[in-house]
């Protein structure tokens, strides 16, 4: 390419070269993009928090094609970035290949388990968090009927549903849980209109608390619940602020903590299987000024008792994905 360099003599190529100064960390977002108001954005927030607190710099990239997963991983690995964090289970097969080619680079994948020696696999105990909000739902419900609206019908979302039902039934054995999945394709993650329809149908059947584990579809669920005057439960990020006084609480999955921890560990990232759960702050429920009025002390006491029980092991929440079945459904 000497010809190109000659033509564009003014180009400041060296200043902008994509090599890391001192093994900076890097993060690759999934196809949803970093401002998806949910999963990827939480990852982005974790990276930003790390940059602010440590004064360090990191690089990130958004993809627009499946073929770019492997390409981006290789590009960052060649550039000397360490560790490299990827968000989402869709990266699994690309990461398996690339991690084997760069044994000296540390990688982290969120929401998936990859077996290579230099990969940290971060998974969350979403069933525990769903159990906690299930307890809250059963306590807050006056009709004894609560709802669950999932996004795409995959084992991960059934894991949410199963934990939720366990929490509800443990609190009120006679309660009814109405469950709906939005769809079977990825578009089910971003269909607020259908989310709203399902919410109306569940309210029609008597539900007065609806838990949405459906990505962007949940926006429609929370909106409809607020319009119809029933309670709702948000997911992943703290969504209490969306409809103060209507969102009972949110099941928080601290993807940002996973990214923050990986970035903080730097090149010494401890690899292997990492579980973020109730015990280590990776999973929690949200309590702030937006839901303080509806999240009564009685509900809080019950949820905190359940949380303590999960942490000390006296409450065992069944994980749907451990055997692809749910004892209470």
């Amino acid at each position: 390419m000497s010809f190109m360099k000659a033509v564009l003599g003014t180009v400041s190529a060296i200043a902008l070269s994509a090599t890391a100064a001192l093994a900076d960390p890097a993060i690759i977002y999934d196809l949803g993009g970093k401002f998806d108001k949910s999963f990827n954005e939480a990852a982005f927030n974790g990276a930003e928090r790390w940059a602010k607190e440590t004064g360090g710099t990191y690089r990130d990239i958004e993809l627009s094609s499946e073929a770019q997963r492997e390409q981006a991983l290789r590009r960052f690995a060649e550039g000397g970035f360490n560790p490299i964090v990827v968000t989402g289970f869709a990266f699994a097969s690309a990461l398996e290949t690339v991690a084997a080619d760069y044994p000296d680079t540390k990688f982290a994948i969120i929401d998936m388990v990859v077996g290579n020696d230099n990969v940290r696999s971060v998974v969350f105990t979403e069933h525990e968090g769903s159990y906690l909000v299930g307890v809250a739902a059963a306590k807050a419900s006056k009709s004894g009927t609560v709802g669950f609206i999932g996004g795409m019908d995959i084992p991960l979302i059934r894991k949410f549903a199963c934990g939720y039902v366990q929490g509800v039934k443990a609190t009120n054995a006679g309660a009814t849980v109405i469950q709906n999945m939005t769809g079977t394709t990825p578009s089910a993650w971003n269909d607020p209109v259908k989310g709203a329809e399902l919410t109306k149908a569940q309210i029609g059947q008597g539900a007065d608390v609806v838990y949405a584990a459906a990505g962007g579809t949940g926006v429609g669920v929370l909106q409809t619940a607020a319009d119809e005057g029933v309670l709702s439960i948000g997911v992943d990020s703290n969504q209490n602020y969306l409809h103060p006084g209507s969102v009972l609480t949110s099941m928080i999955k601290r993807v940002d903590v996973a990214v923050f921890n990986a970035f903080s560990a730097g090149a010494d990232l401890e690899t292997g299987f990492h579980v973020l759960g109730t015990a280590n702050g990776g999973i929690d429920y949200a309590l702030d000024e937006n839901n303080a009025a509806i999240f009564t002390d009685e509900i809080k006491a019950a949820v905190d008792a359940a949380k303590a029980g999960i942490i000390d092991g006296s409450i065992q929440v069944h994980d749907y994905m451990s055997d692809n079945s749910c004892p209470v459904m």
Partner: protein
Amino acid sequence: METMPRWADVILVPLINLVLAFSVAGLVVLAIGQNPLDAIYFMIKGSLGSTRGIGYTLYYATNYIFTGLAVAVAFHARLFNIGGEGQAAVSGIGAAVVMLAFDWPHWALALPFAIIGAGLFGAAWAFIPAWLQAKRGSHIVITTIMFNFIGAALLGYLLNGLLKSPHTQNAETVNFPEGAHLPTAHEVLAPLGIAFNKSAPANISFLLAIACAVLVWYLLWRTRLGYQIRAFGKSEAAAKYAGINAVRITIVTMLISGALAGMLSINVVVGEQERLIKEFVEGAGFVGIAVALMGRSHPFGIVLAALLFGMLTQGGFELLFEMPAISREMVLVIQALIILFTGALNYMVHDPVERLFLRRRKRKA
């Protein structure tokens, strides 16, 4: 009718369009405080500066050649097939069914059958809109674009049920037999002593794309069917008067178009992913329209335009690495400007250039 020389139409006008597009794109880059020369340099270096870059450029270009040819063939019969996206998506099912049906021992054995499978499914998806157009007069633009959605839904349904791999949460099939792995550019060139990047996804499908381009040229300009297609496209009434069966030409043209779009899955599904995934077409069906427009619906022009769009796709991604201030959406804006100038605003340049040539000719005469 007097026109400008062919070389001006085919090379000069697109070149002026490109320069205009890059100038406007440069202004956009300048507006966010970045150096446009840097951006162009990184895009070219990223797409052609290494064998890895070239490998990705050729991989994307292969897709665009297939979809560009698909649009062009239909265009010669004045049928606007914007269903390449759906035809390619459905063709993936055909390719996957063939690849998973047997434990193929060698790619040379699997490839012809995969081509037939992908081609048949792609053609079948084009058949229904074609039949509706020919027999019922339902406009092909409307039906093909609606079939894109139906095709995506069908693919999603099968990947979540019948074809889904039990080992993963992803909507995808299990991996194809390893014996049927298509040789990549690295594996083809290594015995010849040429070192090519190992991870680049370019594979022998590129040769298939070139072969398709030659076949399309032969079909359109050297066969009776091609003559009928072009006559039908120039004037339907005259073609009918000359005894050309309008129903037959409409359907046959669309079948060929759909099968060509279906070849995309040979490159992506069989060649690169080696399993069927949900979103593998990724807009290539629509880029094919721009490629066909820019390539003047001629196979040679299409190959050149496809290479350019391959460079844009790959170079645009490299730009994200080299210039962090430029976002994914910015790259999309730059690509869209190039499509706008080369496709939609073609006549803005075409007519003045033609007038210039005619005036010069008059002065000589």
